[in-house]
């Protein structure tokens, strides 16, 4: 068996975020499947997940006067998928902060009410700075639980990282130690999907699009052959390759930021009442329009010399 065929992760932009499918090659040898089950407790199997980001529930202003409409539309779109995604990952800024006492809790309840309509059974979150930076994540944890954690799903190891709760864009030494201990339990062949809010690389530091110790996180992840990082914060789609990982940013559900290479000013793109979901990725879905498939190699670490290398490929499809 060509071990690179063992596991394939594909992604498609649904506009609502990213729909990502994970598909182990079904011709995989039973012994290899057993190996994965022993290594991380779950046998690889096909599944899909959706990433959503930056709903900013409670935001009100000219960049988007429609409030939670795009968020609710995204939920409807996801609920219409067949098959249903097994996982929905929210990569931060679930809510927009308020100075009014009690308002932040109300906004988190509103978020939960809307997200609670999802048919998907497994919904996971990480905080954004608007959720957690002003109180060290205390209120966020009351509503959503711990801000960093990990879990396995069908042979993929998922790591939720918090790079917002300390106010500054940083993961911090304590969480970094936890990450190293967590990863040490797994073979370097285990596919890893990290989801976090801010980019883990210097995308545009003068727009605060970076994580101070992101390089340390990537160093900890470097031995792993299949690493995908899903993040939000930048309110636009972006793909970036570092040495051993590929990083995907999901569009926002409230407003979009411009291409950082095209302008010096970080100002939200103007709201267009004729196309209220423009640049949010919520473009109208048409069944008559075929998927535009664009395969992109996610990792170039084929045959890394460990027990089992896999290929992760990205299929970008814009509906």
């Amino acid at each position, binding site marked *: 068996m060509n071990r690179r065929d063992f596991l394939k992760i594909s992604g498609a932009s649904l506009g609502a975020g990213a729909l990502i499918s994970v598909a182990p090659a079904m011709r995989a040898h039973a012994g290899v499947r057993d190996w994965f089950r022993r290594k991380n407790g779950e046998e690889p199997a096909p599944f899909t997940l959706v990433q959503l980001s930056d709903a900013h529930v409670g935001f009100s202003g000219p960049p988007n006067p429609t409030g939670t409409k795009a968020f609710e539309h995204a939920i409807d779109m996801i609920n219409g998928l067949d098959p249903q995604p097994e996982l929905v990952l929210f990569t931060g800024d679930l809510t*927009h*902060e308020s*100075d009014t006492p009690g308002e932040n809790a109300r906004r988190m309840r509103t978020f939960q009410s809307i997200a609670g309509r999802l048919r998907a059974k497994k919904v996971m979150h990480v905080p954004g700075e608007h959720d957690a930076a002003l109180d060290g994540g205390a209120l966020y944890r009351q509503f959503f639980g711990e801000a960093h954690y990990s879990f396995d799903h069908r042979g993929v190891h998922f790591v939720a990282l918090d790079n917002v709760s300390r*106010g500054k864009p940083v993961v911090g030494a304590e969480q970094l130690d936890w990450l190293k201990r967590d990863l040490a339990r797994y073979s370097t062949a285990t596919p890893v999907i990290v989801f976090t809010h801010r980019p883990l690389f210097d995308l545009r530091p*003068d727009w*605060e699009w970076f994580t101070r110790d992101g390089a340390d996180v990537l160093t900890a992840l470097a031995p792993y052959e299949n690493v995908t990082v899903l993040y939000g914060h930048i309110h636009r789609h972006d793909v970036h390759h570092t040495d051993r990982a590929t990083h995907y940013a999901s569009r926002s559900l409230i407003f979009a930021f411009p291409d950082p290479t095209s302008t010096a000013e*970080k100002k939200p793109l103007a709201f267009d009442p004729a196309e209220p979901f423009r640049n949010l990725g919520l473009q109208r879905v048409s069944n008559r329009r075929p998927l535009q498939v664009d395969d992109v190699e996610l990792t170039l670490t084929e045959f890394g010399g460990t027990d089992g290398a896999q290929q992760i490929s990205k299929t970008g499809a814009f509906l």
Partner: protein
Amino acid sequence: MMQFLLTIVLAVAAAQPRVVEIAAKKFAFTPDSITLERGETVTIRVTSQDRDHGFLQKELGVDLDVEPDRVNEVTITPQSAGHFVAICDDFCGSGHGNMKMTITVVD
């Protein structure tokens, strides 16, 4: 003797870098722009008037935790001319994303 001491005092004074004072308050730095000369050693002193802020400009090596009731300063000698944006990188509220200023370095 007096002249000798005066000479020492003047020499010490001459060795002190120029101090540039900046005030930080949600959600702005005042002034919002400063100009430095390339090769000039200056001390940038940032004072918070309300809460914790950050003051970060990576290219110039400026990275301060700006806390109230404390002297927060860094001494730099810029080596490149240009416009550099310094930001608050300690999230301070809804206007945090626009809390920034420009440091212009001229030849």
